């Protein structure tokens, strides 16, 4: 062969054309299912538009937004979302990190045990919600009550999902149970990637376990922790299946979150699309900062 290794067969397409053809189908789909509806939602948020009354759209300016900011329901849902998402991500992180540190050692059947810790993550959300209802509530107010009473922690049976003070912590617990393995595997992978030499060097320097954690483990994991936390925070904002199938936002709106409120306004009751779009746009803008931060960090890792 006389080829120099740099030549292409003459009829081959250019790089630009090739990339264009490879990307076109995906970009068209993203345009159709994400960009176009998003633009439409943005547009709708400035209009009066009820799906029910057949009067079509009329321009409102920022009225939907001012109404939103004056709506106690919106503020309630926003605060609830922050509590739900913040509580879940924090619990996931603390438990997932503790577990990752605990299993970061040699012990029998390690791979099998680590895999078993991951199982709740794959269990469908509706199943998790069903189990939660069964454990916390029925029959006879649930096995959780029976166990806690036997242990002497509670004296009388508690309606976990029906008590306005307990409903939110209970759905946070159920969501954390399902989502924790994600944090666990990511932090565990992070721990595994820490160079052994760094730990050995610290040990030789006389660092105790806590000092090693503080000065070797944490700095090495900082970026992964930031990335995983942002990603979970943004994703959990969407997540409504467990609340939808256990409390439906109740009791007395104590577990009403933003996605649930938007769903309620758009698809049940008044079908006020302008108002629900405004709610969604607020959420989008609120999370944009987190998304940008995530993309920047990932971009830096890639470079």
């Amino acid at each position, binding site marked *: 062969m006389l080829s120099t*290794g740099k030549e292409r*067969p003459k009829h081959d*397409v250019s790089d630009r054309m*090739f*990339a*264009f*053809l*490879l*990307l076109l*189908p*995906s*970009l068209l*789909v*993203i345009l*159709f*299912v*994400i960009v176009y*509806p*998003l633009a439409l939602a943005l547009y709708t948020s400035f209009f009066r538009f009820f799906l029910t009354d057949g009067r079509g759209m009329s321009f409102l300016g920022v009225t939907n937004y001012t109404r939103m900011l004056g709506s106690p329901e919106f503020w309630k849902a926003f605060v609830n979302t922050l509590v739900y998402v913040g509580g879940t991500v924090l619990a996931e992180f603390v438990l997932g990190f503790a577990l990752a540190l605990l299993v970061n050692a040699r*012990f029998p059947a390690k791979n099998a045990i680590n*895999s078993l810790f*991951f*199982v709740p993550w*794959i*269990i*469908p*959300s*509706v*199943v998790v919600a*069903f*189990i*939660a209802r*069964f454990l916390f509530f*029925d*029959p*006879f107010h649930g*096995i959780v009550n*029976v166990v806690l009473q036997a242990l002497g922690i509670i004296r009388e049976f508690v309606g976990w999902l029906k008590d306005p003070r307990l409903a939110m912590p209970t759905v946070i617990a159920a969501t954390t149970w399902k989502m924790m393995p994600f944090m666990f595997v990511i932090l565990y*992978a*992070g721990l595994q990637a820490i160079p052994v030499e760094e730990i050995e060097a610290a040990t030789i320097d006389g660092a105790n376990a806590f000092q090693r954690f503080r000065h070797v483990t944490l700095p090495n994991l900082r*970026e992964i922790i930031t*990335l995983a936390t942002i990603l979970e925070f*943004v994703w959990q904002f*969407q997540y*409504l*299946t467990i609340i939808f*199938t256990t409390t439906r936002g109740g009791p007395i709106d104590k577990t009403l979150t933003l*996605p649930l409120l*938007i*769903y309620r306004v758009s*698809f049940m009751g008044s079908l006020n*699309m302008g108002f*629900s779009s405004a709610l*969604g*746009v607020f*959420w*989008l803008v609120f*999370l944009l900062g987190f998304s940008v931060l995530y993309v920047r960090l*990932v971009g830096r*890792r890639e470079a």
Partner: protein
Amino acid sequence: MKPRRRALKTLRFALILALLVLYLAPLYWMISTSFKHQPEIFRMPPTLVPAAFTLDNYAAILTGTLASAIPFLVYFRNSLVVALGTVFATLVLAAPASYAFSRVPFRGKRRLIYFVLVSQMLPVVLILIPLYRTLQRVRLLSTYPGLILPYLMLTLPFSIWMLKGYFDTIPRELDEAAKVDGCTKLQAMLRVILPNVKPGLTATAIVTFIMAWDEFIIALTIMDKNAMRTLPVGMMQSFVGEFSIKWGEMMAASVVTAIPVVLIFVFLSRYLIGGLIAGAVKG
């Protein structure tokens, strides 16, 4: 020093096992309950192992009908079609796109990658409102493609990103070798590089399947005909809001719903976990 160390090791192992048992106890309780008769489910104190083992709950959900006269198996089939369809569409779209991002030089690539990354972080319910109306206009409500299409908004950006990570790990020398052998760009991609990212394709397929199998709110909105409902929505409407819930059947339905993803996990967990890590934090 040494015996103390061994004691610590044993203690650690015992703690790990205890936590595992505690963590998976809810799943055990679901399975155990699914094999009990209703009176035993209500018995006090509760029985840890079914005293009178029964398959009635399974028989009831697999042969009988749930609420609204729709058999559980119809929901199951709908879920399976939608999940497999989503996997197929996602792979066909994401593989070429991520290949381009990983290996073909072009202008504006970085910006486009960021665009894809951000597009997986947008509010789904917000997008769902206009999407619902668009799908209504093109008469895709309550059809399989009408649900698979919106699912791509969840799966496609993540999959493109995840697969790109896998393509990035394939050495560039392989491209050069293909070039020397006279492969066109398309041949190099299909015959040389793509077979090397099979683990990545497997991981993407699994994550996509699990996402589609789990999804609830889009399915609730798009599938407004009961016969087209997927498992999560069908189950929710069959078991929630009734006055006397049949807990045994509800737990049996839960077990059956979890089986496909658990099976996938048993055989392919290695790919799944590797893929998740690649998609979330690696480049």
